[in-house]
């Protein structure tokens, strides 16, 4: 009896492993079918910021062709593996809180559209309606420092996901207000650059410290303001953002005593 049980188990194990093996895509073969079948999606992905040497479809969708590939990629955990800093900003936002609590009730087989989720997860906004052109055409919602300002078309498109739940007037007001909040951060950065220039001429010995402070303003505090605005995360807009910029701006000035 025991012997038979072992044989059955071995047979089942072989069966399941061979079936998994049969459906597991080889390294580059998603495109064999999906390049034609989902041509628009495929093109969008190729133009996206995710089209990187180390990433392919399986990075987000997994490698089990089990009918859950789309659902898997819609979950926040898929994104937060790489985007950790962004995740900490988002998870403290009201959207992030609601999404965390609503996770058991969310049906991830639903498209990323039409308010199908209690609160938007990462992909709901950043890949709205399944748009795979992440980071290029529609988003990031606020352009990175040094990138071009959004075109009229981009400014329009960045509002689309929000409108599934919020009034268009709130959404426009919110983005314009957020743009102003970020711009004020840039003002602090530019004032800081002027101070650094003064330090270079009158206190050159303090330059390493001055440079470090200014880079911290740009790469951390201003980046935090952007994350805070984008995710409506108060800590990043404020405590890790604007007052932090204030602090380093006056520390820069204090180098000229």
């Amino acid at each position: 009896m025991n012997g038979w049980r072992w044989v059955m188990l071995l047979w089942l194990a072989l069966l399941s492993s061979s079936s998994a093996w049969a459906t597991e895509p080889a390294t580059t073969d998603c495109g064999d079918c999906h390049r034609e079948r989902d041509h628009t999606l495929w093109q969008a992905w190729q133009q996206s910021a995710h089209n990187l040497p180390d990433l392919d479809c399986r990075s987000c969708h997994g490698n089990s062709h089990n009918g859950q590939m789309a659902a898997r990629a819609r979950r926040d955990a898929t994104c937060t593996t790489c985007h950790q800093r962004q995740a900490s900003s988002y998870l403290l936002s009201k959207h992030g809180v609601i999404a965390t609590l609503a996770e058991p009730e969310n049906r991830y087989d639903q498209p990323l559209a039409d308010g199908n989720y209690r609160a938007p997860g990462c992909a709901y906004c950043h890949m709205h309606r399944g748009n795979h052109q992440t980071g290029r055409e529609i988003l990031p919602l606020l352009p990175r420092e040094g990138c071009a300002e959004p075109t009229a078309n981009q400014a329009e498109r960045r509002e689309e996901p929000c409108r599934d739940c919020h009034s268009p007037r709130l959404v426009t007001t919110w983005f314009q207000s957020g743009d102003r909040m970020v711009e004020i951060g840039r003002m602090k950065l530019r004032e800081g650059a002027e101070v650094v220039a003064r330090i270079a001429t009158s206190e050159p010995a303090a330059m390493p410290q001055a440079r470090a402070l200014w880079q911290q303003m740009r790469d951390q505090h201003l980046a935090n303001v952007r994350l805070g605005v984008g995710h409506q995360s108060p800590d990043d807009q404020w405590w890790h953002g604007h007052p932090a910029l204030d602090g380093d701006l006056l520390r820069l000035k204090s180098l000229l005593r």
Partner: protein
Amino acid sequence: MRLAITLLVTCLLGSPLLWAALALPQQGVGEFADQWQPDAMHEYWDPETMHRPEKERMSGVYTADDCLACHKALTPGIVKDWQASRHAQAAQPVGCPACHGDDHQNLSLPGPQICGGCHPQRVAEMEEEKKYGFPSHALAMQRAVDSKHFADKPKAEVTACLQCHSVASKCDSCHTRHRFDAAEARRPEACITCHSGPPHPDDQAYAASAHGRLYQQEGQRWDWRQPLRKGNYPAPSCAYCHMKDGKHQVADKAVWKFGIREVNPHSAENAIKRKRWLATCADCHPEEVARDFFRNLDAERQSAWQKLYAVERLLKGLRGDGLFTPAAKERPPYPMDWLGKWWPRERIGFYEGQASAFYNVSAIERDYFELWYFTNLAAYKGMAHGASEMSQKRHQQMEREAAAIAAQAEQLRLTPKKVHDRPSLWQQGEYTEYNRDHQ
């Protein structure tokens, strides 16, 4: 026909310019109302004061079914959310017009006054909180707009303050719209959007405590539909203790409050508040355990204040010797600070208004601000939530920061001031000038 109009309207929504044409409120509110003009977002954070009804798009009077017919297509997320709410499932559903009004030219964003129409006890409890003074949920918006730094700084910058301070003016800070679920507001996550970050890392303190660890392990499986009463939860969430029995106020037990000034925990008023705490803890703990806990908290606070006062004495010594650079008269004053114009002085400590003095000060004052407002408060919050290891680490950090400030003070005493053009450094510059010109 109505649907056709709605679709046309939807098409027109595209241009942000249309919204830009809306007149903004010309004046602020509160103590410094005539000094500032609100940012356009302000109306959404304090709708009862600032909201401008939408008059440009739609007209007509609508029933709840009319609203749903259009908004299912326009804003499907909120319709689905409302449909899953108790408002929708009640025998007499509470539809859109009950809260927003039915005249599309005169819609309102509901605040406590409208919610209080059906939930008067909860709103009355929140109103009652005001008698305990700051800090409080009910007075939060007043605290924001009456702060000198709020009135002084560009409104597009300090709009960042309003989301959290809107807890006074919007019930949906905790009961998020359009589900308005009590079960959601009972969970710790409902609080962390605001109760996080350097001055109030309540989220970290709770997560590191025995209460929070138990919640993280098994809180998903607790029945959050249960009221916040004895025996209903294996460990307390934020609201279990701070809003005992679901009472909608958080101030009637607050002894050490925000933590930015020393208090006497044994005053007659605080003794009453402590009894309320002991009664709360008694749901699970013997009284002596709770008494020990508060004795340890008071000892931790006293230790923190000894450290802070030592630094304040040192800074006041520097001030007496005129060693701050820039001196108070070299800094841009708050425009509304008439006393500061006649008697400019550097603000050291709570009673001199240091809570607003975190910009346009010298580096050493700012370093003390961070020691007092960030590290000290993290030490307090750790201890108050039963995360003593977090508190101990922050006390060590306080000591390191105090030593660094002492070293910096020594440096200021040893190094003579140079002849820099300080007015151009401290009173000019792109942001500094923008700040001066845009309140």
